[in-house]
């Protein structure tokens, strides 16, 4: 089932659902004729779309609105904050081509602060599907929650079978092995990069390391138990995201660890204060160092350094005594 098919099924069974777009129909091309006046295209007018969605929600509707992630979260930010956020209206905001998915469009189209912005608004939830299956599975729960959501839209084919049903605020964990409690590394990630993370996991495990991959799914609310386990049961925590290092998963994890008084070893793999190279996805992943093998190499390197440090610390300790 595609996103469009799921949305149609939900809209046909619930007349409160209204599908809106700021002339971005890529994912919902067939809905206009099927939904009639419950499909509203406002043209290239993100601010008006968000405000109108709030107005529709005041009348009891459940609008789901579509535009590119950058234009929605940036151009219309204040409308999201004031009209949806303050009022806590059940509007679902779907940001298209987020993160690396904007490929060769250039920095204007790079939604790599979208999570930072959306989670900065009290009461706005954030869902980052790792594939179409997860997106389709989650959609009914998001509507049922009656809360505002930001969806970091990704509807690619699944790279691996899911191991856990979708549940708001619960992560899915791809474990090193069924019985391994303690692991060397936990990779925390979300969205499109899950595939690369799983590839890195395979490679590291082939090299003898034990690695968990945590697909967080919703970043707001975040699965705190999953964060806690990552800090308690692994030597190295990796946060992997196609987002600025500031404000995204690394920040979420750091805030949580500090609050809990935890000081795990953390390796952030993110965009550190720079725009990424505008090129095709396959090439940009490689250029920016986000392919599975490159991620594995970064982790291996850091893990080796940690071990070397631990040995030299031990040596120092022994020589002092």
């Amino acid at each position, binding site marked *: 089932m595609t996103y469009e098919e799921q949305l149609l099924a939900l809209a046909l069974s619930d007349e409160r659902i209204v599908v809106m777009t700021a002339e971005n129909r890529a994912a919902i091309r067939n809905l206009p004729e099927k939904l009639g006046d419950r499909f509203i295209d406002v043209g290239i007018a993100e601010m*008006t779309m968000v*405000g*109108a969605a709030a107005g529709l929600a005041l009348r009891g509707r459940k609008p789901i609105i579509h535009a590119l992630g950058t234009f929605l979260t940036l151009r219309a930010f204040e409308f999201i904050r004031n009209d949806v956020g303050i*009022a806590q209206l059940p509007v679902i905001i779907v940001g298209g081509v987020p993160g690396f998915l904007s490929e060769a469009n250039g920095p204007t189209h790079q939604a790599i602060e979208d999570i930072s912005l959306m989670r900065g608004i009290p009461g706005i939830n954030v869902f980052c599907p790792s594939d179409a299956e997860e997106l389709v599975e989650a959609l009914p729960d998001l509507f049922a929650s009656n809360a505002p959501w930001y969806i970091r839209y990704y509807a690619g084919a699944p790279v691996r079978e899911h191991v856990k049903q979708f549940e708001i605020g619960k992560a899915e964990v791809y474990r090193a092995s069924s019985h391994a409690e303690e692991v060397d590394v936990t990779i925390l990630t979300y969205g499109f990069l899950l595939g690369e993370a799983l590839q890195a996991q395979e490679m590291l495990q082939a090299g003898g390391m034990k690695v968990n991959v945590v697909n967080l799914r919703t970043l707001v609310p975040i699965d705190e138990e999953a964060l806690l386990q990552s800090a308690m049961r692994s030597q190295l925590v990796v946060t992997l995201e196609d987002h600025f290092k500031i404000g995204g998963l690394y920040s979420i994890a750091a805030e949580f660890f500090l609050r809990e008084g935890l000081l795990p070893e953390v390796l952030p793999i993110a965009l550190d204060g720079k725009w990424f190279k505008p090129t095709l996805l396959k090439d940009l992943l490689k250029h920016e160092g986000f392919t599975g093998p490159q991620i594995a190499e970064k982790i291996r390197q850091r893990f080796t350094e940690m071990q070397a440090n631990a040995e030299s610390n031990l040596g120092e300790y022994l020589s002092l005594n």
Partner: protein
Amino acid sequence: MSGLNHKELEALSLSVREHIVRMSTDGGCFIGASLSCADLLTYLYSNVLNVTPEMVHDPNRDYLLLSKGHDVPALYGTLAELGFIERERLRNHLKTNDSIYWHPNRAVAGVEFHSGSLGHLLSVAIGIALDIKMRGGSNRVFVILGDGELNEGSIWEGLLVAKAKKLDNLVLIVDRNAFQANIRTEDLIPLEPLAQKFEAFGCAVKRIDGHDFSQMDQAFSTFPFADGSPSLVIADTIRGKGLPSIEARADRWFVNFTPDEVGMLLEELHGRQASALTSETLMVR
């Protein structure tokens, strides 16, 4: 909607202006913009809008959205006089024991939506109007816009959408008091010829004196002004209307008077004695 005659409307407006003046102390308020739209709000709530205190959750009510939210004392004064909220409640203005502050709060009965940042509520009104159309309703959505607010691009974006969607259940009213925060509109970002601008964007436009109830009788007698178009009224008003001492210093947009000054202004409001306000007392403080 009660249908008041002009004498009754004048009395109602005077009471609303008293509330506004009383809210201009102990923290103050945006008095000039509140006084300029007081006659429009009292008229709309008395003689046009199909909404009563019992109807605030009725889906068939008419909506009024205050997009230029800083004139909310005029709305609160009107809501208090018409029984949506208790008059005594206005004494809680800015106090921690209530939630009546410098911009609209939709937790207060009769307030449809919050505002404060300019250029938002036309788009919210579009959403409400779209839903009413979808359901085949005949209720209408009124939006009070400031003229300074027309600097915001989102207004013009919204007008394009409102026309495209043929939202003739929208009624936009511009409180044309000729001032933005500190400066005359025509001296900063000139708006005229304003009617032509709105017409070019697809609105059906009328222009009236926003303090003349006879002109309001005519302008607000039937909607829409044209099928398939948003109706738009440019209401020429005076910032500080009703208090010559404020009108004369209309460039002071936010004031915080002493209780003695409020006493003087209430006297002036009733035409008894002009206030001896100096330019210093009209300063923002």
